[in-house]
């Protein structure tokens, strides 16, 4: 404790220099925490979007994932109601939803356009998707409608000049290779924030799609869990229970999430490395100047029986005190910024390929704060050690005659 007190007094011996080093360390810490917190927020949001879109665990026929189909539903999953019942009984499962992926032409009588469709369970599927799918008009279709109803992407609706209540026709190739058509009514118009999807998206009842394609199969079964963290365990359990099927997790299917995560890890990794170098230089410089100024004092302390390692320890304590002060200040600023951004409602512009922005939010992560603090302290210790190790071993006579 005494040594720490002496080190603190030494740290404030040259207030301006120590404060400058402390401020640089604080800025570096703040930058890492805010950048890292933003990356964590982005990962969390994308994880949520991906998991809500595909389901936490997705089951399909072995050939479904990655295999090409000559005819629709060639690699489909048979007996989905029984499978869904079995899966629903697994612990932690919130919902099991059958889905059919299909495509074809949509027509309003005057013109046609290609659509990419999803056959989904009425009501339940819209409940699990959450806020990423926003209704600009109308509402989700329900069960028990007399005629097939659809929810349509807003750009496709515009192209088809369709409004809620408009009648349209879906044309698709059946499982036998023939063309089939069904008249549908628009029940809702949605956006998912991605123009390429909004101008192709059609969602309708899975039973209506089965009638259109002349099949009783589905493409996949999406298992939604109560906790995303239970994904791997559940996937393993499903795989063990149904080894004849292919099992994928949301992460396997979240190509965009993984690409963004890789990109952000690199960007913020480089940012972190730059901050490490800046803090290292700032603290090294401060400690090197302190050591140079106190060379004679080092000689005196060595003469009266202080070991070089004890001299170095004192300088390391001093550097760590400055580093810890800077880290603490940086953490406070970052925490304040995190709270401020939560209430500020600042919107980021839409990223490439999307039509809607997203809120600028920064996640608070105790682990990130602890790791950053520990890293700053380690850097400070390293910088102080580098700066003082040589001086502490200088011949005492030389140190004592230092001017």
């Amino acid at each position, binding site marked *: 404790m005494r040594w720490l007190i002496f080190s603190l007094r030494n740290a404030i011996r040259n207030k301006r220099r120590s404060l400058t080093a402390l401020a640089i360390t604080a800025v570096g810490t703040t930058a890492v925490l805010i950048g890292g917190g933003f990356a964590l927020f982005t990962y969390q949001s994308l994880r949520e979007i991906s998991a809500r879109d595909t389901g936490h665990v997705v089951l399909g026929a072995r050939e479904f994932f990655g295999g090409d189909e000559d005819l629709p539903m060639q690699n489909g999953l048979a007996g989905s109601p029984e499978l869904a019942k079995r899966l629903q009984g697994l612990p932690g499962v919130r919902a099991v939803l059958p889905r059919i992926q299909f495509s074809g032409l949509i027509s309003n009588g005057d013109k046609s356009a290609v659509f990419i469709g999803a056959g989904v369970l009425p009501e339940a599927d819209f409940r699990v998707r959450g806020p990423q799918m926003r209704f600009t008009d109308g509402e989700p279709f329900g069960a028990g409608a007399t005629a097939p109803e659809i929810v349509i992407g807003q750009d496709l609706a515009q192209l088809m000049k369709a409004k809620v209540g408009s009648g349209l026709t879906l044309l698709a190739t059946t499982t036998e290779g023939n063309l089939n058509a069904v008249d549908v009514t628009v029940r809702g118009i949605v956006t998912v924030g991605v123009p390429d999807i909004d101008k192709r998206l059609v969602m309708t009842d899975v039973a209506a799609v089965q009638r259109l394609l002349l099949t009783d199969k589905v493409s996949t079964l999406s298992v939604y869990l109560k906790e995303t963290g239970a994904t791997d365990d559940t996937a393993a359990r499903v795989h063990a229970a149904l080894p004849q099927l292919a099992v994928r997790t949301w992460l396997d299917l979240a190509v965009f999430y993984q690409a963004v995560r890789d990109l952000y890890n690199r960007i913020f990794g480089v940012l972190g490395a730059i901050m490490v170098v800046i803090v290292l230089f700032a603290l090294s410089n401060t400690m090197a100047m302190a050591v140079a100024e106190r060379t004679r004092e080092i000689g005196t302390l060595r003469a009266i*029986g202080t070991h070089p390692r004890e001299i170095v320890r004192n300088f390391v304590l001093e550097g760590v005190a400055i580093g810890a002060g800077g880290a603490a200040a940086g953490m406070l600023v970052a925490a304040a910024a995190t709270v401020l951004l939560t209430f500020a409602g600042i919107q980021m512009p839409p990223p490439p390929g999307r039509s809607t922005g997203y809120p600028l939010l920064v996640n608070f992560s105790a682990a990130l704060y602890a790791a950053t603090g520990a890293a700053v302290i380690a850097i400070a210790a390293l910088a102080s050690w580098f700066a003082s190790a040589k001086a502490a071993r200088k011949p005492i006579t030389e140190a004592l005659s230092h001017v």
Partner: protein
Amino acid sequence: MSSLSLKDIRKSYALGGNAVQALKDVDLEVRPGEMVALTGPSGSGKSTLLNVCGLVDTPDSGRREIAGQSVDGLSAAELTELRRRHIGFVFQSFNLVPVMTAYENVEYPLLLLGKKTTERKKLVWETLDRVGLAEFGHRLPDALSGGQRQRVAIARALVKSPALVIADEPTGNLDSATASQVIELLGELTRERGAAAVVATHDERMTHSCDRAIRLVDGELQ
């Protein structure tokens, strides 16, 4: 047993490509409680001899003993331990640690020795009282006069009751009246504590207050 014993000490430096013989076959014995004045002109090798006596410099050849213990062949860490236990230093420019109070400066050698808090307190206050600075214990060196600082330095050197005190021009930065007080104090304290002292000085009064004076000229004792 001598507090300090030097036999055939030789030390040379390389200066501008030439070897300069700083000490030539120096023999010196200093008994406990004895204060020896080391005089001589500038460049005669006084500082080199003090450094060799204080184990902060190593001779080229010769034998050294501190408190009856041979120091020849000891590692740097072992020499540090010996200085920590047996040698006190008084410098011309006081060399107090500016962030430590007078009390803490005097306490520092005891901290290094790992003495317990109560023992440290007792020894430090006793020594500060002995040098007449008990009421200045909580002041930083900057708030003390030159004479007071040198008295703190003397207290720091003697608080651990060392076998040997090395003093390099202890009155060099003091006015005449203060120098007299410091000379008297250093003599009294070293004798009281049974420490041997080697004092490099140009001050005649210092020389006269020592038990004996030795003169070094061109690295040789005369």
